[in-house]
Every structure is written in C-alpha cells, then in structure tokens.
C-alpha cells in the first residue's frame, strides 16, 4: 500500500484510492472542485516519487516536467511526498557569492556558486535566505551548467529590506542559503520550429536572458523575439550582449523599447504597444512574459486575444514584497 506524505504526516493510500480521497479519509481537506481531472483546482506537487501519467493529463508541459499532478485523478502506485504548488522546496544549499556587478543604475548582477548540486532550469526562480530568516525570490538568468555560477539580477527597491542588503552589504566571498527551484517559466525542448515571443520589463530581463540562451543552446530553430522595455534608456541593460547574440543567431531578434526619447536603434513606445504593433497574430506562438505585475497581466491578456493558446503563455510577475525584483 503506497504511503502519501503531506505536511509532514504520512497516510496509507488504499488500492484504487486517489490522493484526494486518501487525504479526505484522513481528515485533510485539500481544495478541489470537479473531481474529474478537469478544473485543476486540486493541483499538487510530488517532490518525491513518480505519479501516474493519467494524473498529469491537461497540465502544462513545464508542470509535468516538475512532477505536478491532479490529486483527484492520481491513484498512486508508489510512495509519494506531496505539497501544495509552489511550496515544495526540493533543494537547499549554501552558495558562495563569487560575483557582484552593476548592470545599470539600479540592477545588480550576483553570481552564486552552490556548494552542492543545485538543479534548475533557466527562468525558474530560487528563494534566497538571509541568516535572520528573511527570504525573497529571484529568477535565474544563467544556464544550468555546473561550470558557470548561478546568476540573478536584483533591482534595488525603495524600502526593500532584502534588495538594500544585497546591494549595500552582501559582498563577494560571503555565503547565502538558496532554496528551490520554483516556477514554470522555462524553455521546454521538443518543438524546435515553434516561434517564441519574450516580453520583459526592468529586471524581468533576467529570466528571459536565461530562457533565450537555453533555447538557442538546445537547438531551437524557430524565431525567438525578445522585447525588453523600460521607462527610459537608463533602465535597459545587457544591450551589447543581446545585440551580439542576435548577430550570432539569425533566428534571434532583440527589440529594446523605451516609453519616450528613444535613441537610434531603440523602439519608442511602451513594450505592450510595440509588441502589439509588431505581431497581430500569435496563433501557435509560445510566449514568455516577465516583469511588473500590471504589465504581465496586460500582456497575458493581449497575447491570448492575439491568438496564443493559454497553454503556451508562461508568465512570471514580480510582486513587490515576496519577489522583490527579479
């Protein structure tokens, strides 16, 4: 009889019983609605054990790869450790700060070398924990290659306790704890000809910089078009690197945008307007959107109305407190 571990408690799951039924029978109420594997209310994350394929039907590719499943259709065949989505921390390691460099006036790049293996996919985020327990989340801009350090882009926030500490106090040679990874905003191989649209504002470029290079490294042949927008030119960064990447890869296009006073080579207009006037039909495109929450919500809607399927829209909102910057 498989055992289900949830919130530190272990339950026996009887034959032919679903995870949802098993939890309910033991007095644990987990959110659910249709109970037929359709509405996805009862989404769970298996941090240990393998779930039957049927329990992953209808989920996004990136969720399947991370062992997410629906509790109402999952009849386990082996022991599982399960948790609510986004809460299952699978890895905790200490990492040394090996690089700290300003990318523009308010965004700092940190390079972290984990003491132990830390598996992730470019574009996912990690939780960074300070000694006193303060935790914030930052998206990963580097490639999952054990020779290169993990890279995060941190924008200084007004009154942001963690970002102020990171910018002003943390230095090369210090150690921090990192946990994770979390998030479904990453490249999935298997459809190399699909066109990919990436839209970012501010330090939302961090995860997109990782996703673009990951897609190119994995041999993506379809168009990959990145739009990075900011209020003014000072907020853009990695421009030289991105232009070089575009020269080296004919299928990669880079469009920097600023709201006003655009210099030569930069589009003028808010990034949502620039994207909309560039692409009116996004049927069959894959879309990644990272940055300010309002922009993300707006672009999710716009790209969906322009024909992108919801299954193909991946987004990461940077909310002020729990995810301070990138």
């Amino acid at each position, binding site marked *: 009889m498989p055992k289900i571990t949830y919130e530190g408690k272990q339950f026996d799951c009887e034959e032919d019983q679903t995870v949802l039924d098993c939890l309910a029978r033991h007095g644990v109420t987990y959110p659910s609605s249709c109970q*037929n594997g*359709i*509405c*996805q209310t009862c989404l769970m994350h298996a941090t240990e054990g393998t779930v039957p394929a049927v329990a992953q039907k209808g989920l996004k590719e990136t969720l399947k790869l991370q062992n997410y499943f629906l509790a109402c259709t999952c009849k386990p065949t082996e022991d599982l450790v399960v948790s609510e989505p986004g809460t299952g921390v699978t890895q905790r390691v200490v990492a040394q700060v090996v690089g700290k460099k300003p990318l523009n006036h308010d965004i700092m790049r940190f390079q972290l070398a984990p003491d132990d293996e830390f598996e992730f996919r470019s574009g996912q985020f990690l939780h960074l924990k300070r000694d006193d327990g303060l935790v914030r989340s930052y998206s990963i801009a580097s490639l999952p290659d054990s020779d290169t350090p993990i890279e995060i882009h941190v924008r200084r926030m007004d009154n942001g306790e963690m970002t102020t500490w990171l910018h002003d106090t943390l230095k090369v040679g210090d150690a921090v704890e990192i946990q994770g990874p979390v998030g479904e905003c990453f490249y999935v191989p298997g459809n190399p000809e699909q066109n990919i649209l990436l839209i970012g504002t501010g330090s939302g470029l961090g995860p997109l910089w990782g996703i673009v290079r990951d897609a190119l490294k994995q041999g993506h042949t379809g168009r990959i078009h990145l739009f990075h927008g900011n209020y003014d030119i000072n907020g853009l960064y990695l421009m030289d690197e991105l232009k070089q990447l575009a020269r080296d890869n004919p299928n990669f296009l880079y469009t920097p945008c600023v709201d006003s006073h655009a210099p030569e080579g930069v589009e003028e207009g808010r990034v949502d307007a620039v994207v909309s006037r560039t692409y009116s039909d996004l049927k069959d495109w894959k879309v990644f959107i990272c940055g300010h929450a309002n922009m993300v919500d707006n672009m999710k809607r716009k790209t969906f*109305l322009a024909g992108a399927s*919801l299954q193909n829209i991946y987004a990461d909102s940077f909310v002020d407190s729990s995810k301070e910057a990138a």
Partner: protein
Amino acid sequence: MSDSLYDKIGGEAAVDAAVDIFYRKVLADDRISKYFEGIDMETQAAKQKAFLTMAFGGPNSYTGMDMREGHAHLVKNGLNDSHFDAVMENLGATLSELNVPAELIAEAAAIAESTRNDVLGK
C-alpha cells in the same frame, strides 16, 4: 457506448479546442469582459474547462451551491440575465466555429441554461 452527448461532441479533445476559443470570445465581449478583469487567467480557464465539460454532458461534480457561491460577488455587482445571455451566445458561437451540428449545440445549450438560476443567485 459512444452515443452520449459528450462523446458525440468529441469528448475531452473538443473541450480542449473549445476552451481557448470560448474564453477569448468572453474576454473580447464588452458586455461581460469587466467581470473578468483582474482574474488569474489560468484559474479562470480551468473553471471554464470544467463548465464546458459539464455543458457537453461530460464528467462533472456540478453542485448548484458552487455556482451560487462562485458568482455571488458578481451578482452583487450587477450580474444579471443579460450577462448570462451573452455567455450563452458565446458558447453557441464557439460550438458553431468548431462545426458542432446544430442539434448537439442545442443540447449543450440546454445543459448550460440549467445553471442560470444558480449563477444568478435566484
């Protein structure tokens, strides 16, 4: 046995095809789009998938109570028969676009119609 409405419409594949089309129509419909502002799109799409599955006669655990509770805050904000009619119209148009025969559309519409009082808290 493959003569249920759900099977005739095309089962899960039909629901998958319908959900994007239906949701896009709803969001683009000025009569009702305001009720969808500020709502997480994935969560909403999943609910619509459950709704469409039910309307297509597929597996569901529909309870009028869920529909009442889920829409009560919208009813307070003026949700009424005209909005329900708009959703019904979008449902019909979605199925037509997917070339579902008229008699099956009528069957699905009748199921969806049966939720009207629960949705509107009557």
